[in-house]
């Protein structure tokens, strides 16, 4: 399975459509077997979506994402865990453990992640 996390420095980018970079991680069960960072700076929305398709991404863990992108990604079979904020690595760990949900704030300090799901 391939997971993509839009990045802003080492944190999850607050917006998928303008994130400067994306981290793509290939997982086999709970193990990271491959990973790469791809620059997205200057890409328009279509180029971003094309990039994800060409990299055969299955799931995106992201911050803000607009409804158009959500629908489009859904149609091409990419599952989205949205409104996640905080440290990208922590979000990945929570995902591997199977507990990450939309709206989680992974601040690296609190024991329990705070969740504020979309209304």
């Amino acid at each position, binding site marked *: 399975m391939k997971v993509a996390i839009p990045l802003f420095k080492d944190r999850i980018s*607050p917006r998928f*459509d*303008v*994130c*400067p970079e994306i981290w793509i991680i290939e997982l086999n069960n709970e193990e990271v077997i491959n990973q790469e960072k791809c620059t997205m700076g200057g890409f328009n929305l279509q180029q971003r979506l094309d990039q994800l398709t060409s990299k055969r991404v299955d799931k995106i863990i992201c911050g803000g994402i*607009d409804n158009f992108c*959500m629908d489009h990604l859904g149609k091409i079979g990419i599952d989205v865990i949205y409104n996640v904020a905080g440290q990208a690595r922590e979000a990945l760990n929570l995902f591997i453990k199977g507990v990450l949900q939309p709206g989680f704030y992974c601040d690296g300090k609190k024991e329990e992640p705070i969740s504020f799901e*979309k*209304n």
Partner: protein
Amino acid sequence: MDKKEPEKFFNIIFNSIADGVFTTDDEGKITFFNKAAEEITGFTSDEAIGRYCYEIFRADICQSRCALKEVLKTEKEIINLPVTILSKNGKRIPISISAAVLRDEKGEVIGGVETFRDLSVIEELKKELSEKYTFGDIVSKNHFIHDLFNILPNIAGSDSTVLIQGASGTGKELFAKAIHNLSLRKNKPFIKVNCGALPDTLLESELFGYIKGAFTDAKKDKPGRFALANEGTIFLDEVGDMSPSLQVKLLRVLQEKEYEPLGATSPKKTDVRIIAATNKDLSELVNKGKFRDDLYYRLNVVKINLPPLSQRREDIPLLVDTFIRKFNAKMGKKILGVSDRVLRLLLRYDYPGNVRELENIIEHAFVICGGDRIELDCLPREITGGQMETASSLPMEEKSPFDQAEAEVIEKTLKKYGGDRIKTAKELKIGRTTLWRKIRKYGIA
């Protein structure tokens, strides 16, 4: 008064106003988030406080040129910067933001404050108005152009040849494209040929193509523009500049729907809609014997006359807004508009170059403008200089020093090679077509 009282008092005030307000500490973490901010962003104050502002505010500029970082760095306020944020439920919201430094009672910087206003309703109204006055890429509220908007779908659906007459820069190509895009040929090519930009022989091979061996350099077959436009539309700009011999060949295409590529022995069939345009009065050229009357009547099945911008001044503010939006997107700027003085001046100017000239003026202003509003000093000097003369009182156009020098060099080189344009172009390291265009431009005999 209790020490907590002023804080409570300020909270009441900030929670009563319609603008969103949040403050941050010097790390960019939110310390206050008012009621309107909650309503606009969809995040509650509890969710927002203690978080990095970019994770809650989610503006398109947060990751590239954060407004608060900028004010903390420059200590200069930012006022009414238009941006788009992404609300908690994934909706893009246009807002305008203002940002300033936040200081304590000793004047020490302790963070920043950002206020923002939801522009959704205003943008929606603007969009509605703009749609009302827009047809494809054509923007106008002029009644004459609106009459054209009404008949354009009928013209497009008819498949008849169209002749568009209008001065340079009036939008002839935009109308031609609009007709093509509304027609049944819209999914086929739209091919443009500028008949005034090419010498006769080149234009013939451009239009009709050639076959291998037609002339020395013809190593293989080359399709012409008519072949490329097959099943689509061909737009013949400056058709009034076409030579008499080519006029005959174009007439054949219109009459017989066929043409002969250079060097071919048999004609080729074509299925192309022709839209011709000219900045000259073709009927006048017919009277002078410079344009074939039979071709004129073939082209003039449906005629559209486009008025100069000076006869549709009501469109100037609308066009200014359109160009500002276009250049903001193209150049990544956030210019809000033009000052009242600039607009007054633009409304008075005569625009010999029509809409294209107005577009060039705005582009020039974008390059010069350092603020968020175009002021008089951003405009080209020929617009602001002197008494803002009307076109009729402007002196005759003179060649710029660069043009003057270029014309002299071309003239000398032509003389050196006894008028041989191929050798002249080679010597000047420019293409033959470019040379031909420059000869025309400078009126070199």
